[in-house]
């Protein structure tokens, strides 16, 4: 290979797509490192504090697309205080200074200010795609800047962000000359939308393939939009309140009939009952259906709709579909690969599905490889059956609403059930546990979950042994997050070198002490060990007895960037 000119190597590397593979390629020799680095166009940074933006820009001079993730996963569930960090501004600033030819920016759980969006929109003339997932810190003013100044914008995808809505004018900031939009998702916006501007924008975007509307877009506007954009592949319906006998409804039915290309349907954010029948006609074409934001749809309407969806590969719904509804899914959606069942009433602590629904799905959907299932109860027998029926799980996330509930029939821990899952699913990469669990389940996980990369533990285990089994056995573990479990210093310090092979470790409400964390930080300078202290209970200036205090929240991660300089007061890096 060394006799090939660089261009040939570069061309060969073009075929190497995945980040993992490209990382491997770059480690072969210096030459390959060099060529791979300047030819890599898409960079993935799983922890924005693992490396500094300048270094990224320097190494990957051909960088066009970057994905950044900020806060730890448990921030999604309010376990991380606001202002913890994850700011994108330094990255945008550094890239602007280094004249990176940025075209695509994908962020998850990061703080995005309006200033960042403004700087972004002015610094990269070829910027095409902005995807923000679970981010916060910006307002519609920031969006206005993106709309106005990103002349080549193809994609603006806002998923589940917390956006402060100032006015609906940002949509009218897209210049009249802008006709390049391919994907527009503003479903998470809460305020009013300039509806005429939206209609005009859709009318002048012939390449628009994906459109997800917010609550503020009513039925009559939807109908007019569908008439103008029958080429849509992905539709997110906003507000869906209608009178079945109205003229608007009839017009909508006509418009939907023309949308033969729609493969993905979502939204129904404000929904009146009995509304879905208008969409039955496109159901046979759907491969993806997300009704998880529509609690107004009753189970019989859901079931009627699903009976038409034979080609479904991805389904996100609420548990009001019930076990019976899941049986219908199992018998109808033979191509189903991913299922997510969310609780429709999280505050009440009751879910409308049980182990029976899951078993039914496993029997009917042989291709299932990814599941997120919030349920009322589970049994070992059910999990063992599921494991036998579906050995192809790559992601298995089970959440019993009562986090320490035992087997509903035998009252035993659910160790055997989860043990069966990890043993049967040899390709399992992600696992979330719940229910009554002892150290035994971790023994199984350590023994069988050879491909496991991410593990989420809550209210589980009896002793340090549990965590030790996992750290010893799961060679490919990258992310471990634990809450409210009795794991302490012995587990934490068992194999400190392991943490450099992982992206991060989160432990909250466990038994680790300040002393343990300090010891770890001392032995592993390549890690940032952060203590999140919200209650001022700990003395930051080391007192001798303090080391025995339990640490409420600890987050550690490997990094090349050293201690971060933007940590707030309540975060202490040891």
């Amino acid at each position: 290979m060394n006799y090939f000119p660089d261009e040939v190597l570069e061309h060969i590397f073009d075929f190497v797509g995945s980040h993992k593979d490209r990382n491997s390629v770059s480690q072969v020799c210096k030459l390959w490192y060099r060529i791979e680095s300047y030819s890599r166009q898409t960079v993935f940074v799983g922890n924005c504090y693992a490396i500094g933006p300048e270094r990224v820009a320097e190494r990957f001079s051909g960088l066009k697309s970057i994905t950044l993730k900020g806060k730890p996963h448990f921030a999604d569930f309010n376990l991380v205080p606001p202002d913890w960090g994850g700011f994108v501004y330094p990255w945008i600033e550094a890239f602007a200074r280094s004249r990176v030819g940025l075209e695509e920016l994908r962020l998850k759980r990061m703080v995005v200010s309006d200033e960042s969006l403004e700087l972004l929109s002015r610094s990269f003339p070829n910027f095409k795609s902005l995807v923000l997932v679970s981010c916060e810190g910006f307002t519609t003013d920031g969006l206005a800047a993106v709309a106005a100044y990103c002349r080549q914008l193809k994609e603006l995808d806002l998923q589940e962000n917390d956006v402060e809505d100032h006015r609906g004018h940002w949509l009218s900031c897209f210049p009249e000359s802008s006709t390049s939009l391919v994907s527009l998702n503003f479903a998470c916006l809460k305020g009013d939308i300039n509806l005429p501007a939206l209609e005009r924008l859709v009318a002048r975007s012939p390449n628009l393939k994906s459109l997800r509307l917010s609550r503020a877009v009513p039925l009559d506007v939807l109908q007019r939009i569908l008439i103008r954009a029958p080429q849509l592949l992905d539709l997110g319906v906003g507000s869906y309140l209608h009178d079945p006998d109205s003229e608007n409804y009839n017009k909508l039915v006509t418009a939907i009939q023309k949308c033969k290309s729609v493969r993905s349907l979502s939204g129904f954010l404000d929904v009146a009952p009995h509304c879905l029948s208008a969409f039955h006609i496109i159901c046979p074409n759907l491969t993806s259906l997300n009704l998880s934001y529509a609690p107004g749809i009753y189970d019989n309407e859901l079931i009627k709709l699903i009976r038409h969806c034979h080609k479904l590969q991805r389904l996100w719904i609420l548990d009001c579909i019930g076990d019976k509804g899941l049986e219908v899914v199992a018998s109808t959606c033979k191509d189903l690969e991913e299922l997510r069942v969310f609780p429709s009433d999280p505050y009440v602590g009751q879910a409308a599905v049980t182990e029976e629904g899951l078993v039914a799905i496993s029997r009917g959907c042989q291709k299932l490889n990814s599941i997120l299932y919030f349920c009322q109860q589970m049994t070992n027998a059910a999990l063992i059956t599921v494991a036998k029926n579906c050995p192809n799980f790559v992601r298995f996330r089970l959440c019993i609403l009562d986090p320490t509930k035992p087997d509903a029939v035998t009252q035993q821990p659910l160790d055997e059930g989860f043990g069966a899952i990890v043993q049967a699913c040899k390709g399992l990469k992600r696992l979330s546990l719940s229910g009554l669990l002892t150290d035994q389940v971790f023994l199984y996980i350590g023994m069988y979950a050879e491909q496991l990369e991410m593990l989420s533990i809550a209210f589980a285990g009896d002793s340090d042994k549990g965590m030790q089994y996992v750290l010893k056995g799961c060679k490919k573990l990258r992310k471990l997050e634990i809450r409210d479990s009795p794991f302490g210093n012995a587990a934490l310090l068992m194999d400190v070198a392991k943490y450099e092979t992982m992206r991060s470790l989160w432990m909250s409400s466990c038994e680790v002490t300040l002393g343990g964390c300090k010891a770890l930080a001392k032995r592993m300078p390549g890690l940032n060990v952060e203590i999140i202290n919200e209650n001022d209970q700990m003395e930051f200036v080391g007192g001798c007895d303090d080391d025995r205090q339990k640490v409420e929240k600890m987050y550690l991660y490997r990094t090349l960037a050293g201690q971060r300089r933007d940590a707030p007061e309540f975060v202490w890096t040891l």
Partner: protein
Amino acid sequence: MEGGVAYEQGLNLKATELTLGLPGTGETEGQGGVRNNNKRPMPTSETNEEESQALKAADRGSTAPAAKAQIVGWPPIRSYRKNSLQAKKDNESEASGMYVKVSMDGAPYLRKIDLKVYRGYPELLKALEAMFKFAAGVYSEREGYKGSEYVPTYEDKDGDWMLVGDVPWDMFMSSCKRLRIMKGSEARGLGCGV
């Protein structure tokens, strides 16, 4: 201050007192209920507001399991999702119709009806007429309910007493807090003009 307290206490007794008066006799609820601004809470409205708040909470179903301690961050769903579900619940309990109290001047006790059950004014009026054994008369925009001894009115979100039938049904459903079948003689002012 003292007077106010005594007034309130006396008021509570009155509210729970059973009266078997004939139509038109005795203190009726609607007497002071014309304008209900927060600065000068009318006695009956106050107690009723407390009750309706408790009812609202019960409607949402959140008070029953509130005894169970809420674990922070459990179940593990994103705030965005939680908020959208909660907003939906709030919308539902307000807009899709719920049980509202119906009082009739002179009747000994109130009734409750589910507005969701009715598809429009004609059905609602028929049900009210059957429940309270009266005739509402014919509704016209100009003259209200003509030729009847009793007139159906409702209290809206602002605390104002409105004539049933003036606004579109959907708007009525989302703004009606309670109904009162008013004696015709009192209702004359409501029927006509601005």
